[in-house]
């Protein structure tokens, strides 16, 4: 394990049963989460990003199975080599890793809280169970936490049932629960997708603030590149159960290399190009259950090479931070230039970003 990484995933493969046969939905994922950074895992729905994140906390569906791979988690002190979570039992992970080492913010705040338990009870439960604290002390801690996630009336909120709170407030409660036992890693699974746009921004602000205050390492899952641009230090792009491009924020946003990343970036609405038609990626994601041959993206890829239909390309390293799964960069081929309208958008955006940076 590298020194500054808190979590590393190596060649993770996860299968689920579909019509009585097992289908590999995660087909060998590698990722490294450096300490104190925000890593964004980006992809369409069905690309396997949620499954990957859930496997870290043993929250997979019952029928899912980790077929191979390692999930290395560095110990709290950082001097031991790191535990392989893939080899621990479900009960062991739930008991020792969840909440204490890794907290999770879920996608839908409306269904994530237990409807028949007060907010306070759900929040204080972790303290009582893990730290054997008395009710009074647990409540005090819970109230502090509710205040720190920006809930205006912690006392009142403590006694309420989830359905008495708005979606944004519930998401704040869930964030408080995720942080209650001071984990060093926070997984956010599309935490703003089901919220109103104005509330989305505030939740995002809150997450950024908490990350900075607590030096959290964050795995942020989203399909929204706007959000990614806002918060990510490192970006991984996922397609059909594999990482197709990884790099720093500027690598991916300003120098994207994989045709799929190009497609993703071109399909984001951009305020400064009102007149322009949005470009969508042709075709649909592959059906993993019907068996794969070659690069799953090749049928949708205008730049696909003949050998891509035969065999999936390996990752090619472009710089110390940037790598891409495409034969266009194997040295034998000349990488094509960025599609024209994407180049224009990036040029526009980067000059705006430079201006902003100078302002700072």
């Amino acid at each position, binding site marked *: 394990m590298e020194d500054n990484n808190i979590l590393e995933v190596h060649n993770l493969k996860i299968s689920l049963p579909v019509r009585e046969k097992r289908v590999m939905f995660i087909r060998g994922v590698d990722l490294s989460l450096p300490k104190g950074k925000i890593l964004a895992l980006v992809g369409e729905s069905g690309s396997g990003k949620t499954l990957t994140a*859930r496997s870290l*906390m*043993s*929250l997979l*569906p*019952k*029928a899912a199975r980790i077929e191979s791979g390692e999930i290395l988690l560095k110990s709290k002190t950082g001097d031991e080599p790191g535990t392989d979570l893939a080899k621990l039992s479900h*009960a062991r992970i*739930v*008991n*020792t*890793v*969840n*909440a*204490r080492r890794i*907290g*999770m913010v*879920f996608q*839908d705040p409306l*269904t*994530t*809280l*237990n*409807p*028949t*338990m007060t907010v306070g009870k*759900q929040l204080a*439960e*972790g303290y009582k*169970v*893990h730290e054997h604290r008395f009710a009074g002390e647990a409540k005090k801690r819970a109230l502090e936490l509710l205040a720190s996630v920006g809930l205006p009336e912690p006392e009142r909120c403590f006694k309420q*049932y989830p*359905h*008495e709170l708005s979606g944004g407030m519930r998401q704040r409660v*869930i964030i408080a*629960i*995720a942080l*209650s*036992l001071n984990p060093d890693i926070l997984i956010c699974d599309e935490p703003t997708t089901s919220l109103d746009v104005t509330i989305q921004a505030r939740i995002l602000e809150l997450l950024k603030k908490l990350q900075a205050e607590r030096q959290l390492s964050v795995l942020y899952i989203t399909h929204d590149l706007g959000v990614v641009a806002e918060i990510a230090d490192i970006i991984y792009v996922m397609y059909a159960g594999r990482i197709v491009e990884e790099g720093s924020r500027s690598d991916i946003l300003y120098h994207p290399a994989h045709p799929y990343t190009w497609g993703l970036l071109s399909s984001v609405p951009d305020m400064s190009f009102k007149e322009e038609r949005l470009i969508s990626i042709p075709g649909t994601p592959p059906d993993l259950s019907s068996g794969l041959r070659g690069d799953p993206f090749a049928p949708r890829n205008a730049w696909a090479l003949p050998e891509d239909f035969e065999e999936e390309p390996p990752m090619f390293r472009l710089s110390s931070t940037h790598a891409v799964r495409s034969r266009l960069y194997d040295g034998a081929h000349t990488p094509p230039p960025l599609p024209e309208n994407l180049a224009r958008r990036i040029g526009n955006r980067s000059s705006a970003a430079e201006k902003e940076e100078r302002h700072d």
Partner: protein
Amino acid sequence: MKHFFLKRILISVLTLLLIVLVMFILLNAMPGTPFTGRHLKAEQLEVLRRQYGLDLPVFQRYFKYLFNLLRGDFGVSYTLQKNMSVAEMLRLRLPLTLRIGLQAMLAGSLIGLFLGIISAVRHNTLLDPLVSVLSLLGSGIPSFVFALGLMYVLAFRAGLFPVLYSAETPVKSTILPSIALAMFPMANIARYTRAEMISVLSSDYISLAEAKGLSEGRIIARHALRNALIPILTVMAPMLVELITGSMVVENIFSVPGLGSLFVLSVQSGDYNVSVSIMFLYSLFFIVTMLCVDLLYGFIDPRIRLSRREGQ
């Protein structure tokens, strides 16, 4: 919340009035009178009719009937035990029926809940299909078949229990009827519990509880069960009806001197007053239970409790 209470109580009272009305109409529509076939002279008949209040106008008779019922006066038996107060007959037989019914319901729901929970939690093991088959058979086989089977195997062949009810061994005698009656609620509760638990266990808040690092036992006891219980409660109430139906037949099979066997006797001997009174008692019991379940429901589910509080 108060509003809801009142509405539910009002509906229950209306239901009861309707039942009494139906009973009254039926009693009047029954073929013959209690005095047919006794070769009475016209004036004797007239005296009897006046004595039993049968000469009053229909309206007055209805209200008199209703009033009597509410006072616990169900009239007298005409044929089974001539002129014995029906209330007295019921009082003597009620405890045994209640005992068997309660034993059955208690055993049935506890075992059913237990089986449902373990088969949902151990969803992918052999236990699950086993419970499924069990509950399929339990809900597909009527209680009288169980009663006959138990009687033949455990009582007649093995001699472990008395074949028919005997007043000398009252406790032992109620066991087989209770088991026979318990099968249906057990099977159904197991089935519903399993389905509910599976859907609850795959819900987001269970993931949250796991993410909080809670143990499996705590998640099931504190988070899953309470949410699964809410819909299960609603199916338990109709099961009472099945239990009532079953008790008539099962009591008859084991010759248990309870309400059910009295009912069958009264039907067969045409003692309508007794039959109708027993039906009234069953309805009253059912209505009160349904009312309690509805109110309990409000207590368990805060969403209902609060939405009603706010809705006022």
